[in-house]
């Protein structure tokens, strides 16, 4: 039987009324005015609160740095002050860190984790931990993991702040919050701050549909007055607002900004006169990122292209740490219709754990499409799960004991969904019965570990029709049984069916349709092949999933004739590059490769075209956007040449290596990216370290690659000191390398002063400098 739990109300506003100076730090009063703090807690206890929150909302090492007191000292005092109030329970209150995490901010996930860990360790005398007023799901995850791993098993409550749109400031939606946090094993979730109780009704309603956990409601006393920022709800009005929340089944209540002990007294009276409403929400199979939830209630496409198996160009990209290439593959599949992306970055000769982290971070920084982490390396899997923000799919576990024992605990800990492969130590059973039995075994084990039934997806394994023709229908029968008898979602890697046959696309497409009819939910396919995504769209239309054929018509109804292709017969590659025509540059390069040596194309066509564009730019006849446009077209041509070279094992275009970075503290990287594309156009190998790069990382990359030239970019005056520091460290540790610096606020004088070898006013000049350093 569920019971109500009453939390306390606002702290900051009350302290101000008691003389805390505006702009003062409330946490300091834990030491300076302990009696006042205890008296506020006591007032809430007397008003009927079962739990009081310690006065530690901003008590982290970043915010407390200027107080002269340690987090340990302040939190210990705060817990004591709370305890002295005679409360039944003390909650260690933890608010947002106050800095945004990557990729929008500069704080790293691991740093956020350490900050929270310090708070949790300092507050272990509390009875539970509360993360509140949260907006960024990545930050919440760091806090929850710190509390789970260092909190001694005490309960964890999380409340986030939503706008009326049902999203937090960072765009996190309610289903994603619920799926992710319930998966991570927190004990209660809900909302606080931001809105008044009336505006929170639809938000709490949605939350109640998406979680089986107790739901917390801790609203402000109405909306703030826009000019004075004060709150106006009377205690009676505030209490009356609790009614719909009680009816929806919320069970934990309190107040946030503008609420006083009187608000809590009135709310407590109202709530204690009511009865808790039992909820029995049915949470569907679903995966998510903070901003997007994909419900597996119909066929959803998993894009298979982020996988180096059999792809030389992809392997090359992994070895060169070329994340842009991986991102390109990700975005292309999403544009083509992928709902989820499989991410496999394993190669025998690379550090898969590090690559998995890099890939997950990079992909999540540009898309909100959920990911399926595909690896057999447990360390890489855990590293990916730890960083992934949201609820991912793990691909995969199988029926072998060692696999079940390694993979499933990770799935449980990080709240993922998991693909179970129907094979075990004896291999893949020939019959549907055999595979069904393994599926059943995997499910049973998952359930015993507390993994939800809805989070187990089964892959009945596609065998190659050319080799095992009889096996095709066995796979489909197994899919049917797993779906019907176990009620589980099903996955299949579809493309394998046609291996070794002519007209592969024809075979694969028909098998896909048959599998969908048999009950396949998650086809793993190449979405860039139009006929594959078309088969899924058509199936959804015919199976009446796409109601009134809305999606189908939206997609195909306005089918346009392809735009008239430019008359490419008269167009040279140089012309196409100069006009910024990406597609044409690519196709003309392909055509040229039939009869021309790749390096001849680079030296004879591309570079002269770029030189012409560069000269026009310097004359002022064209401007930066046109220069970039031409560079992008040249890049498309280069990509074709790279694929050709990797397929023909002819090495790469390489005029020398250059390390590029935007300095520590600076998150603007467009300027650096422009420099990068131009340098690559001229055949230089660019090691792109990204933005906000610590000086040690620059030095490390320069040492490892022995690059003769390092380019550093900074846009803000505040980050120029980082540039200076980096240049100095390079001078000391990499005496062989030259440095070129640039960026909006930089001047030649400043460049000279900090000891850089060159100042480049723009990307074009950086290329000229590179030519001088490497010899044109």
């Amino acid at each position, binding site marked *: 039987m569920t019971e109500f739990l009453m939390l306390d109300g606002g702290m900051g506003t009350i302290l101000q009324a008691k003389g805390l100076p505006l702009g003062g730090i409330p946490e300091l009063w834990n030491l300076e005015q302990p009696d006042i703090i205890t008296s506020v807690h006591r007032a809430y206890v007397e008003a009927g609160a079962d739990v009081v929150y310690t006065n530690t909302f901003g008590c982290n090492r970043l915010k407390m740095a200027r107080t002269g007191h340690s987090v340990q000292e302040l939190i210990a005092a705060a817990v004591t002050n709370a305890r002295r109030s005679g409360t039944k329970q003390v909650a260690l209150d933890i608010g947002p860190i106050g800095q945004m995490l990557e990729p929008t901010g500069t*704080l790293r996930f691991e740093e956020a984790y350490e900050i929270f860990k310090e708070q949790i360790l300092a507050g272990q005398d509390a009875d539970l931990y509360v993360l509140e007023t949260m907006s960024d799901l990545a930050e919440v995850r760091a806090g929850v993991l710190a509390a789970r791993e260092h909190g001694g098993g005490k309960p964890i409550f999380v409340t986030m702040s939503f706008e009326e749109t049902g999203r*937090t400031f*960072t765009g996190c939606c309610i289903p994603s919050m619920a799926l992710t946090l319930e998966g991570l094993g927190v004990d209660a979730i809900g909302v606080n701050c931001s809105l008044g109780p009336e505006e929170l009704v639809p938000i709490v309603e949605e939350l109640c549909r998406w979680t089986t956990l107790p739901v917390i409601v801790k609203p402000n006393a109405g909306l703030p007055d826009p000019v004075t920022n004060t709150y106006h709800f009377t205690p009676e009005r505030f209490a009356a607002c609790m009614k719909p929340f009680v009816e929806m089944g919320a069970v934990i209540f309190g107040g946030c900004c503008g609420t006083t002990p009187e608000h809590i007294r009135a709310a407590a009276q109202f709530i204690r006169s009511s009865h808790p409403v039992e909820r029995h929400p049915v949470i569907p199979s679903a995966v998510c990122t903070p901003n997007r939830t994909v419900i597996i209630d119909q066929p959803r496409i998993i894009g298979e292209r982020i996988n180096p198996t059999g792809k030389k160009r992809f392997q090359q990209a992994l070895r060169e740490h070329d994340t842009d290439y991986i991102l390109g593959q990700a975005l292309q599949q999403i544009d083509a219709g992928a709902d989820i992306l499989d991410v496999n970055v394993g190669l025998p000769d690379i550090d898969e754990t590090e690559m998995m982290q890099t890939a997950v971070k990079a992909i999540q920084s540009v898309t909100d499409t959920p990911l399926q982490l595909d690896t057999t390396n447990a360390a890489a899997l855990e590293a990916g799960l730890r960083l992934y923000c949201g609820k991912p799919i793990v691909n995969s576990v199988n029926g072998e004991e060692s696999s079940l024992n390694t993979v499933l605990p990770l799935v449980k800990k990080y709240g993922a969904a998991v693909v179970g492969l129907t094979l075990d130590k004896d291999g893949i059973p020939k019959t549907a019965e055999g595979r069904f039995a393994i599926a059943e075994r995997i499910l049973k084990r998952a359930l015993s570990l507390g993994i939800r039934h809805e989070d187990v997806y089964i892959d009945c394994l596609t065998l190659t029709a050319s080799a095992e023709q009889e096996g095709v229908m066995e796979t489909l029968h197994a899919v049917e049984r797993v779906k019907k008898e176990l009620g589980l979602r099903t996955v299949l890697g579809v493309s394998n069916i046609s291996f070794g046959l002519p007209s592969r696309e024809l075979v694969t497409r028909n098998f896909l349709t048959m599998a969908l009819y048999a009950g396949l939910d998650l086809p793993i396919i190449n979405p860039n092949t139009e006929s594959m995504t078309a088969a899924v769209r058509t199936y959804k239309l015919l199976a009446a999933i796409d109601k009134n054929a809305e999606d189908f018509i939206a997609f195909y109804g306005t089918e346009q004739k392809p735009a008239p292709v430019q008359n490419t017969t008269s167009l040279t590659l140089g012309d196409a590059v100069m006009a910024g025509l990406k597609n044409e540059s690519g196709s003309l390069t392909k055509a040229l490769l039939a009869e021309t040596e790749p390096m001849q194309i680079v030296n004879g066509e591309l570079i002269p075209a770029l030189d012409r564009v560069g000269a026009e730019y310097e004359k002022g006849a064209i*401007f930066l*956007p046109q220069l970039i446009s031409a560079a992008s077209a040249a890049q498309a041509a280069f990509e074709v040449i790279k694929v050709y070279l990797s397929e023909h094992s002819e090495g790469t275009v390489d005029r020398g290596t250059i390390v590029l970075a935007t300095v520590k503290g600076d998150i603007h990287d467009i300027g650096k990216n422009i420099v990068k594309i131009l340098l690559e156009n001229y055949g230089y190998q660019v090691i792109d370290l990204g933005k906000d790069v610590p000086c040690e990382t620059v030095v490390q990359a320069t040492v490892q690659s022995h690059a003769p030239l390092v380019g550093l970019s900074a846009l803000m005056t505040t*980050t120029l000191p980082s540039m200076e520091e980096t240049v100095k460290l390079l001078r000391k540790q990499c005496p062989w390398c030259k440095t070129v610096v640039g960026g909006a606020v930089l001047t030649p004088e400043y460049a000279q002063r900090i000891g850089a070898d060159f100042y480049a006013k723009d990307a074009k000049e950086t290329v000229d400098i590179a030519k001088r350093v490497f010899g044109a």
Partner: protein
Amino acid sequence: MMLTSVDRKQAFRYLGLHDSPDAVMLATADRCERLLLAAVKPRFAYQVCPLTFTPEGILCEGSTLLLQGQDIRTHLNGCTQGILLCATLSAGADTAIRRAGAEDVLAGMMTDAMASALTEQLCDCAEKEILAQFPELYATWRFSPGYGDLPLAVQGDFLHAVNAGRRVGVSLSDGGMLVPTKSVTAIIGLSEHPIPKGKRGCAVCKAAASCPYRAKGEHCK
């Protein structure tokens, strides 16, 4: 706050596109504008506070914000109140810029320039909406930390004074940058008397000496 289109003229100027854009440029602009507008959640918050002129600087009452420097003193001369404004396009703008840049460097630049233009549009709308509440007062133009000799270091106190973290989700990075990046803080002075047309733009701009716009005889705004 809804913004339905990007001021392209401004965005193209930020990009340094001076002649009429060609077809590739226009197609890129169309796509970037669509994606950007879908990604952003423009919002702003403000705090009106009495101003006290002290020898150390101008104190924004009710906060720890002290505005130092000669330029802000000139700017707020005669003003009794200040509107502290914090406006942001939200983290969605940063994501849109990153995503566009991952597809194509030109699209990344274009989206970035459009987001900058859109931020200005947002500030204009916010200013209009706020000033409508003070029809009897005269207002200065918006002055931001980093203009003239008003140090960027006040950003932290500025955000605190507006409670920008809680109200609009804007924070300061370790390096002292506003996050999300397409965010602005600015103060508008309010006076009971008409305000003489003060020095503006280039006259107080630290970049005036090396400004590419000025070199062409233009302004950045």
